[in-house]
C-alpha cells in the first residue's frame, strides 16, 4: 500500500482503525459465544438490552450498505436517493437462489437445502454473493446508464423513482402475468443455512452469523479503502471536486461515474444477500424510502468519502435506530419518571440530523480533509473580497 500511494499518509491511521474494528468484532463474538452463556443473568440482561447480537449483526449490514452508498455519494459526488432498491434486489437474489421458492425447479449447486425442502434452487452461498453483486451491478448500470449524462438533481430523481418502483414491484410481484415472481407481501422465507466448507451455520447460531456478516463488512471496508486509493478512486475524487477540471485532465466523466454507480450498487447487493441470510428470508415491506434516507444520513453524518467516518456513522445511527433510542428512552423515563415515547421521535431525529449537519458541519463528524474543503467552498468565498468574487463568476 505504501508503494502504490506515496502521497497518502493515512496508512497507519487505517491500520489503527482496522485493529479497532477487528477487536470490537472479536469482543462481541467471544462475549456472546463463550462468556455470556456462563455469565450471570444481570450481565446477560444488560448486553441483550443494549448490545443485542441481532442488532449488532444488523449494524454490520448497515455498514456494508453505507459503504456502498459512500462509493456513489462520497467518492463520486452523485446523489442517490433510492439505494434501498439495491438492498431489495440483493435480498431477492438470495431469496430466489437459496430457497425452495421456485418449487417447480430442482437445482442444487453445492447448496445446503433444509431437509424436506430439497426442491427449488439451492446455490452455494459464495456463488449467491457473487451473483447478487453482479445482478445489482447490472441494475446499477440500467439505472445509471441513461441518466448519468443529466444534471445531478435529475439523477437523484431517477434513483428515487427506482427506489420506489423496485420495492413496489416486489410487493406486487406475486402475480406478474400469471407467474409468482416475488411472492408478494408474504416474501420468501426458509432460506438455506450457510454451509462454509462443511461447517454449517444454523438458523439460530447468532454468534457465527454475526461473525460472517462482520467478515463481509470487513471485506467491504478493505475494498472501499483500496478502491479509493486506486486509479478509479482518484478519478472519482477528481470528478467530485470539479467535473470540468477532471475532464480537462483526461478523466472520462461518463465512464467513471458509470463505474461508481455499478460498483456502489454491488455493496447494496452483497449487503442485501447478507441481510437475507441473517434474517432467513426476504420481505418486501421492509424496503421503503426511509431506509434510503437512513443510509444517506449515515454517509453524511460520518463524513462523506471517509471510509472510517462512514463506518462510525453507520454504527451510531443503526444502533440508535435498533436499540439505542428505545433503551435511552427507557432509561430517561425510568430515572425521571417521564413517559415519553422515544421511538416516535425517529423522524424528527433523522430530519434534524440531516438539516443541522448540512447547516453546521457539512463535512461530517470524521471528515476527509478534501471533502471539508469542497463542502465549505462557499464559506471560503465569503472571506474573499467582493471584487474577486464577481470576477470569478
Amino acid at each position: 500500500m505504501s508503494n502504490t500511494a506515496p502521497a497518502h499518509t493515512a496508512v497507519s491511521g487505517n491500520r489503527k482503525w482496522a485493529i479497532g474494528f477487528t477487536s470490537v468484532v472479536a469482543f462481541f463474538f467471544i462475549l456472546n459465544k463463550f462468556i455470556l452463556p456462563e455469565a450471570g443473568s444481570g450481565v446477560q440482561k444488560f448486553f441483550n438490552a443494549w448490545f443485542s447480537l441481532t442488532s449488532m449483526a444488523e449494524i454490520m449490514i448497515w455498514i456494508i450498505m453505507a459503504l456502498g452508498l459512500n462509493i456513489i455519494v462520497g467518492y463520486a459526488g452523485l446523489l442517490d436517493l433510492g439505494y434501498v432498491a439495491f438492498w431489495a434486489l440483493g435480498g431477492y437474489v438470495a431469496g430466489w437462489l437459496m430457497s425452495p421458492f421456485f418449487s417447480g425447479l430442482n437445482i442444487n449447486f453445492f447448496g445446503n437445502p433444509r431437509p424436506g425442502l430439497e426442491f427449488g434452487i439451492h446455490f452455494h452461498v459464495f456463488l449467491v454473493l457473487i451473483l447478487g453483486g453482479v445482478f445489482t451491478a447490472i441494475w446499477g448500470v440500467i439505472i445509471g446508464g441513461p441518466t448519468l449524462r443529466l444534471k445531478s438533481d435529475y439523477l437523484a430523481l431517477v434513483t428515487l423513482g427506482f427506489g420506489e418502483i423496485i420495492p413496489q414491484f416486489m410487493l406486487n410481484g406475486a402475480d406478474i402475468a400469471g407467474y409468482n415472481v416475488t411472492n408478494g407481501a408474504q416474501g420468501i422465507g426458509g432460506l438455506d443455512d450457510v454451509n462454509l466448507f462443511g461447517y454449517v451455520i444454523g438458523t439460530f447460531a447468532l454468534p457465527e452469523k454475526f461473525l460472517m456478516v462482520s467478515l463481509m463488512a470487513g471485506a467491504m471496508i478493505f475494498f472501499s479503502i483500496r478502491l479509493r486509493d486506486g486509479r478509479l478512486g482518484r478519478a472519482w475524487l477528481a470528478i467530485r471536486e470539479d467535473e470540468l477540471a477532471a475532464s480537462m485532465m483526461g478523466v472520462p466523466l461518463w465512464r467513471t461515474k458509470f463505474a461508481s454507480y455499478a460498483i456502489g450498487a454491488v455493496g447494496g447487493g452483497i449487503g442485501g444477500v447478507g441481510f437475507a441470510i441473517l434474517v432467513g428470508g426476504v420481505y418486501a415491506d421492509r424496503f421503503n424510502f426511509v431506509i434510503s434516507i437512513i443510509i444517506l444520513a449515515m454517509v453524511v453524518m460520518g463524513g462523506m468519502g471517509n471510509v472510517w467516518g462512514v463506518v462510525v456513522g453507520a454504527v451510531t445511527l443503526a444502533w440508535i435506530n435498533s436499540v439505542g433510542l428505545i433503551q435511552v428512552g427507557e432509561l430517561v423515563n425510568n430515572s425521571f419518571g417521564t413517559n415519553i415515547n422515544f421511538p416516535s421521535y425517529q423522524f424528527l431525529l433523522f430530519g434534524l440530523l440531516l438539516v443541522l449537519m448540512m447547516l453546521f458541519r457539512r463535512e461530517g463528524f470524521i471528515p476527509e480533509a478534501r471533502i471539508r474543503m469542497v463542502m465549505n467552498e462557499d464559506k471560503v468565498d465569503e472571506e474573499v473580497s467582493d471584487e474577486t468574487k464577481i470576477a470569478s463568476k
Partner: protein
Amino acid sequence: MTSVASGVARKKKVTPSAILMRASMIMIIGVAVYWLGLNLTSDPRQFAQVTVNGLNNGLLYALIALGYTLVYGIIELINFAHGDLFMLGAVFSFAVLTEALGATGPSATNYALLLVVLLLSMLFCAFINVSIERLAYRRLRNAPRLAPLITAVGMSFVLQWIGLKWIGSNPVNVNTVLPSSDFEVAGVVIAVKTLIIFAVTIPLLIVLAFIVNKTRRGRAMRATAQDKDASRLMGIDVNQTITFTFAIAGAAAGAAGLMWAQTTGTVAYNLGFQLGLVAFTAAVLGGVGNLYGAVLGGIIIGLIQSYNDGLAIGPGQRWSQTMVFTLLILLMVYRPGGLLGETAQEKV
C-alpha cells in the same frame, strides 16, 4: 421560467444510439396510444367517466406541482419538503375546519367557513415554507448542490414528524363540507365536488399566473430565476423575491391540502411523500420551472393515474404508483426538459 431558444439550430449527427432512443420512444408512445384507443373503443362511457375523475385529481396535482416548479425555477432546488408541506396543509385544514370549527356537513355557513379556512391554510403553509427557506435554504444558497438537496430531504422528515404528532400514525377520516351529490351528463357521473375543485383551483391558477406574469413582483421573480447577480444589479431585492416565491408556493400547497382533505375525505401523515413525488413528476413532465407546464403535467399525470386505475383493460390500481414513477424515469431518459421546458443536458 421563459426559455430562450438557441440562436442557430445546428444539424446533429445521427448516431445509432440516437436512432435507438428515438425508436424506443416511438414504440412506448405507440403502446400507450394503442392502450388508450383500445379502451376508448371498447367502452367510451367508462373512458369519459375515468377522464372526469382524472381531471379532478390532476388539478390538485397541478396546484402542488406549481410549488415545485416555482421553487425550482428560482433557486434550482428540488424542494423535497414541498409534498409534506401539502400534507401539513391538509392536516391543518382538518384540524381547524373539521375539529375546531366543527364544520362537517354541507350548509351555507360551512361554505363560508371553508373559504376562510382555505385562506388560513394558505397563510399557514406560506408561513412554514418561508420559515424553512429562512432557516435552512438561504444559508445554503452558495453551497454545493448536494447540501440544500439533503437539507430538503431532512426538512421533509421534520414536517412528516409534525404531521405524525398532530394526527397520529393512522389515516384520519374527514367529514367533508362538500356535498356528496352528483349528476349525470350523457351517462357520465360528475360529482359536485369535482365542480367545486374546478371552481377553486382554476381561479387560483389564474391568479398565480397573473402574479408571475403581469405584476412587478412576478417580473422580479422571473428576473431572479434567470440571473441572480444581474437582478441584484438592477435593484431587485433577491432575498425578498425568493421569500415571496416560497410564500406563493406554500400558499398553493395549502390550498391543495385543504381541497385534498375535503374531496378525498382522508388525511394521513405520510400523504405528502407519495403525492409530492407524483406532483414533482408532474412538474418535470411539464418542464420544471415552467408554470403552464406544471398545470399541464399535473392534469396529464392525473389522467394517466386515473386511466390506469379505472379502465377495464389496464394494469390496475396496484401498479398506479409504479406507472407514475416509470413515467418519471422515462421522461428523464427521453426528455429531461419536459414537454414545455428547455433541455437540460449536462456537458459530459
